C-alpha cells in the first residue's frame, strides 16, 4: 500500500492504495466520483477523461499515485449544486446526450477546449473530440451544442 495526496475538485484527499492502481478506480471507488466512466481501460474511448491541470486526460491507465500535486477536476467538479457550467448548459439546451455513458468525458474535453480557446475552429473541435467514442450517435447534437457555444445565438 502507498499513501499519497490527490487534489480533486478543489479538495485534497489522502489516499491509501497500491501504487499501480489507475486513477479512475481511486476517483470512482475511494472518492465516490462516478462521473468518469470505465469504457475500455486502454485509453481508446475517452469515457474516463478528466481535467488534469486544465488538460483533458484519460484516467483509466496511469496510476493515481503519479497524479500527486496535479489539479484534477472530474465532471462533478464542473457544476455546483446543479448550476450548470456554460458547456453543460449548451449540451442541455441541445439535448446533446443519449445514454450518457460517453458524455462526461465529452463534457470534460469540451471544457478543456474552451478554456484554451474560446473560438475553436470546426477542425479544432473535431480534433479535440477525436479520441471520444459515442455509440448512440449523439455526435451531431454534441457538435451543434459546441458550435452554439462558440458562435452565440446568431
Amino acid at each position, binding site marked *: 500500500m502507498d499513501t499519497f495526496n490527490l487534489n480533486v475538485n478543489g479538495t485534497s484527499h489522502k489516499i491509501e492504495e497500491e501504487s499501480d492502481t489507475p486513477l479512475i478506480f481511486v476517483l470512482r471507488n475511494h472518492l465516490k466520483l462516478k*462521473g468518469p466512466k470505465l469504457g475500455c481501460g486502454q485509453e481508446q474511448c475517452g469515457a474516463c477523461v478528466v481535467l488534469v491541470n486544465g488538460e483533458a486526460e484519460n484516467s483509466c491507465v496511469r496510476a493515481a499515485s503519479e497524479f500527486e500535486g496535479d489539479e484534477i477536476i472530474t465532471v462533478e467538479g464542473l457544476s455546483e449544486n446543479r448550476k450548470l457550467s456554460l458547456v453543460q448548459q449548451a449540451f442541455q439546451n441541445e439535448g446533446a446526450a443519449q445514454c450518457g*455513458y460517453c458524455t462526461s468525458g465529452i463534457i470534460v474535453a469540451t471544457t478543456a477546449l474552451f478554456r484554451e480557446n474560446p473560438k475553436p475552429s470546426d477542425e479544432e473541435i473535431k480534433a479535440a473530440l477525436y479520441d471520444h467514442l459515442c455509440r448512440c*450517435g449523439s455526435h*451531431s447534437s454534441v457538435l451543434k451544442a459546441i458550435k452554439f457555444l462558440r458562435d452565440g445565438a446568431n
Partner: protein
Amino acid sequence: MVISPSISSHPDVDQWIEFTPEGRLTVHTGKVDIGQRISTALAIIVAEELDVNYDLIDVKRTETGVDPDEGFTSGSMSMQHSGSALRLASATARHFLLERAAKKLDVNIDSLEIDNSLIQSRDSNETVTYWELMNGNKFGIKVNEEIEIKNFENHKLVGERVTAKNMTDILTGEIRYLHDIELPGMLHARLVRPPHYRATLKGLDKKIIKRLDEGNVKIAKNGSFLAVASSSEYSAIKAARRIASSVEWDLGDGISSKDLYEALSSNERISLPIAVGGAPEDAPVAPIGEPPAEAVITISSKFEKPYVMHGSIGPSAGCAIYDGKKLTIWSHNQGVYPLRNAVAEALNMSTEDVHVIFEYGSGCYGHNGADDAAFDAALIAMEIPNTPILLKWTRDDEHAWEPYGTAMSCELRGSLDSEGNIIDWSHESFGDTHMGRPASGRAGSPAEKLVSTHLKENPLNWPVMPPTMGPHVGIHRNLEPLYQFPKTRLVKHLVRDLPLRVSALRTLGAFANVSALESFIDELAEAGGLSSIELRLKYLVDERAKTVIKELDKKMKRDNAGMAEGIGSGIAFAQYKNSAAYCAVGIELEVDETANVLLHRAWIVADAGEVVDPNGLIAQLEGGLIQAASWSLLERVVYDSGGITSRDWESYPILRFDNIPVIETTLIEQKGKPFLGAGEASSGPTGGAIINAIYEAIGLRLRKMPFDADAIRLAAMN
C-alpha cells in the same frame, strides 16, 4: 380509439400510475430507458393527459413483481405498447379524479377545470389537488379502454421540446448506472474467459489460486466458467489477468474459418418464400426461372454485409446477491421479466425466487452482453453467497463475447420492359437468426441463450433457432419492398452452422435488406432512364411514403446536394417493417485521394405519426444514421479459428467525430395520428443512400460492406 396490448395483461390503473405521498407522480412501465428517451416520452404523455407538471413525474426503473411485464424493450414498439397504455391509464385516472373532486367540492363535474394537478370549479372558489383526493389511497379501478382521451388540438406538452428525463444528471455526472452501484460488503468481479465459445477449461495453476486466495481474491468456478472477486476493483482486474496468463484451455475444433460468404450461400439452410404482407409461408420456394419474355433489361446484384457489433461504450455489467434461497439481480438488459425466467431456468430455480431490477446502462442497440453479464454475476453470487457481486465485463469480453448482428447476403434480380417499367423483381436474403434473446415463448430454451450456460458444469446445447414466421421479423424484416411491383419473388434463407454467436441488433435484417434493395432500385432507375426520385415515386402508392421522399428531394435541391466537384449524393427510403415510421435519407459525401469516404451533409425526412418528444425522435433518427454510417463504412467483426480478433477499438474501428455529416432532420407532423416506432427507421435508408452516393461520386457501386479505403481501392482495381 387507442389500443394497447399492455392493458389486457395489466388492466389496473394502479399498475401504471401512482401518486406518491411526497407529492409526485410515479409512472410504472415495463419499457426501459436505454438512452432512447422512452421515459421522457412516457412522462410527456402522462403529464399531458393528466395535466400534471412534467417535472413532478418520475418514471420508475422496471422491476419484476412490481412493474408491468411488457416483455422486451425492442422493435420500436414502446410507444405503441407503453405509450398507448399510459395514455389510457392517465385518461381513466383523470376521469376518476374529476368525479371524486365533483363529489368533494359538491359541484357539477362539468364545472371543473384542471390546472397543473389542481382541480377548480368555475362555480366555487374551492380547489383540491390530485394528492389530496388520493390521500395515499390506490385507484382500485380498471383502465377504461373506451375512455375519451384529450383531443390533440388541446395538447399543450405533446410535441413540445422538453429537457429529457435524466439529462441534467447525465451532464453533471450524477446519473447512476448499474456500473456505479455500491452495496454494503460488495465485491468487484471480473471474468476469465476462454479464447472462444467452444474452448473448455483444461487446467488451473493451484499455486496461483492459493496466492490469490491469500490476497483476499475469491475465485468462482463452475465448469469452464471462471471469475474472480475482490473488494478492490483493481485487484480483481489484476487477478483475472494473472489467471488468464496461466490457465490452460482445450481449444476443441475452434471456430470455422470457412469463407463467410461462401458459408452463407452453401451451408445447409431453411428456405421460405415471403408472402404479401411480409410473412414467410411454409411452402416450397419457386425457382427463380428465366426473366419474363417482355424483359429487355435484366440486372442482378449481390450485396454482402459482415458480422457487426452492438459495441456499447460501457462494457456490460451485472450485479447479483444470493442469500441461499433468493437471487436478486440488477441488470441493464432490455427485459427484466424474460431475464428472470431465463436465469431461473438456467439455475433450476423457481421464478418466485429470482428478482430482477433494471438499472441504467450504456446504450445497447439490441441484445448486447447485458443479459449474459447478469447471468454471469448470478453464477458468481451462487458461488459466493450472501455477498453482493458487481461484475463488469472488460472491453475485450464485450468485443469478443457479445452476440453480434449476423452477417447477411442479399441477391437481387430485376427486369425492365421496353418502356422502362419494372416487370419482375426477385430478392433473396441469407443469414443467421436474429432471435438470440433469452425470451420465453420462443422456440428453444431461454436459458441456452445466456452464453455462460455453455461454459458451466453440465453445459446446455447451443440454440438452434427455427425460422421466425411473423411479418417482417428477423432476416425478412423489410425484405418485402413497399414499392408495388407487378411481380415479386421474395425468399428468406436461414443458414445453419455459421461461425459466430448472434442475436438482435438494431433493425435486425432491415439494414441489409433496405441497403441492398435501395441500391438496386437506383441501378434499375439508371438502366430505365429515370431519376432515383422518379422511380421510387412511380412504384409507391402510400401518400405518406411519397411525401417524405418529395420533401427530401426539395431539401436536397434547395441545398444543392452533390453539386460540387468530386462530391456525390444519394438517397434511399424505407418504411420500417412496412408499418412503422416512414424515413427518407439523403447523404452527400466525397471519396478522398486516400480512398476514404468523407461524409459531408445528410438530410433525414421522417413521418413517425404523432410526435410526442421531437428532441428524442430527432436524436433517434440522427443517432441511427450515424451508427448505420459507421456500419457501412468501417465495421466488420474479424475472427479466425482461434477466436475473435476484433477485441478493442483499434481492431474494430467505429465512426468518430472527424467524419460526422451536418445533419438536417425534418419531421412531418401528424397530430392525432397513431405513434409509429422510429428508433430504427433511419438505419436501412442510410446504408442505401451511402451506396448510391458513393456511386454518384466515383462511379463505383460497392456491394460488400464495410466500404473502407481497402474496399474502395479493391473495387477501383476491378
